[in-house]
């Protein structure tokens, strides 16, 4: 088997504000994520999921355990500044607040900021910026001022800024939390397309169960450990355990489980609205 893109084994991390109170946030995380996967990470506030993302991007250093990302050993005591710099080019992060991520006064300058910092020759920067804006569907806004864009458009510019550095992985840390339904759809459709067409590994941290249901794989983090890891169908089948972890399941999944508890025979684990309608119609023998 090829080397996983992200590999962790018994990974521990604690925030140390003072030595007396260092409660570990991550307590032995072991998981492998392959290149090109589309993974949703769920967990209640404070479960450790954002901490994990910051370790993947070398914003934080692990206390102990194995952590390899894009072939770089991030747990190594000999890790150099250059290696960290190279890794951050490889693994880009998009954060929650669209207003905190754009730095320039014109959209295309903002997208050029990353490659300029990388020392990419200016002829190539033009091409990269154009390609990145096209990939997120924002070409027509190249000359716009970022503050005039909607939240979803700002997030897409932030994504383009990362794309222009040609990363192999993008991490979305609740990047849709502050957006309206349309903006949320724009961002999700953008990263799903990048995953599908450019093979970019996508990790999305979210509180929206409907969003997680679209991923290929769902990892649930609870109190610093991996509680569940599987396809959305497998994970959302564990309704009770998810509720106990302060999470939720898509409304359709919850309905099917509630009906089943009342003795209605329904076979299957629907996660989309259409699958759920089909299952209920079949059970009711409606054509």
């Amino acid at each position: 088997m090829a080397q996983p893109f992200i590999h962790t084994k018994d990974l521990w991390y604690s925030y140390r504000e003072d030595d007396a109170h260092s409660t570990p946030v991550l307590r032995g995380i072991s998981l492998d994520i392959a290149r090109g996967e589309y993974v949703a990470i769920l967990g209640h506030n404070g479960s450790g999921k954002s901490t994990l993302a910051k370790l993947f991007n070398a914003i934080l250093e692990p206390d102990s355990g194995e952590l390899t990302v894009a072939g770089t050993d991030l747990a190594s005591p000999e890790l150099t500044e250059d290696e960290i710099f190279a890794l951050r080019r490889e693994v880009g992060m998009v954060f929650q607040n669209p207003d905190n991520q754009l730095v320039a006064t014109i959209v295309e300058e903002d997208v050029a900021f990353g490659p300029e910092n990388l020392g990419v020759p200016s002829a190539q920067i033009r091409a990269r910026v154009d390609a990145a804006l096209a990939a997120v569907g924002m070409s027509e806004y190249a000359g716009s001022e970022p503050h005039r864009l909607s939240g979803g458009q700002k997030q897409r510019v932030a994504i383009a800024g990362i794309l222009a550095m040609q990363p192999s992985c993008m991490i979305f840390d609740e990047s849709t939390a502050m957006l309206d339904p349309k903006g949320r759809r724009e961002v999700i459709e953008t990263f799903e397309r990048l995953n599908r067409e450019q093979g970019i590994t996508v990790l999305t941290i979210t509180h929206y169960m409907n969003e997680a249901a679209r991923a290929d794989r769902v990892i649930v983090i609870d109190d610093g450990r991996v509680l569940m890891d599987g396809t959305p169908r497998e994970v959302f089948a564990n309704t009770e355990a998810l509720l106990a972890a302060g999470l939720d399941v898509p409304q359709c999944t919850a309905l099917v489980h509630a009906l089943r508890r009342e003795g209605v025979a329904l076979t299957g684990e629907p996660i989309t609205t259409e699958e759920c309608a089909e299952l209920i119609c079949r059970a009711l023998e409606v054509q």
Partner: protein
Amino acid sequence: MATLTLEQVSYVYNPRTPFAVEALDDVSLTVRDGRVTGIIGHTGSGKSTLVQLLNGLEKPSSGRILLDGEDIWARPKEMKKIRHRVGLVMQYPEYQLFEETVRADIAFGPRNMGLSEEEIAVRIDEAAAFVGLELSLLDKSPFDLSGGEKRRAAVAGVMAMRPEVLVLDEPAAGLDPRGRDTILQGIRRYADATGSTVVIVSHSMEDMAAYCDDIIVMAHAKVYLSGTRDEVFAHADALASVGLDVPQITKLAQLLRARGVELPQGIYTVQAALEALRPLFQ
């Protein structure tokens, strides 16, 4: 306890400049007394501007805002009184916690109103109970609380002023599902127990459908739809055309009805769907 009415309100940012933007365009609406009203709308639809107008943080460019029939700008010097009557919880209010203890933070508003210490103590306990904040947390530093608890402490601080109208801008944004339910249930409990008028701004159709009585949909600086929850969510296609959505369970009910399953209108929660389907399986 109070009715808020907007009469032909317009609001323009940067008026008389090339950058003028009309955030609200001739908006007339009524927030009904004692009801929980949800305001939804896409980004830039004007809903946050609307919220800032409701308690006089911004003044309309034209039109009037009436609190129980009285123009809130009739006596600008008494705006402080209006702000005690219309309490506003801004987005991410936990960033505004600053006192040494949670108790002191909740007490800040009531103390500013000049209430007695006995009365303030009563109100702190009452507000903490509404938002489900354990009494043992009250003597901690707000900075030792979890994100969800901080949010609830900030909301309690405004509830403790017992405003006649409580306005909350995205009270559940960024919280996990349990945190979201806890804060929204607390707001509903407050509305039911005190009879106060409550306005909630949110992007979450699921939350609006589960907790609000009335819904106002804003789009392109105007009121696009308004009415009771049932009236508004019956217009799924109209909502979709302005970038909004109906809850997943409501979509499921529509699909089932289209295939001949006899379900009533107005299914917004898993519980309601379960109750409607139960007899069909017997």
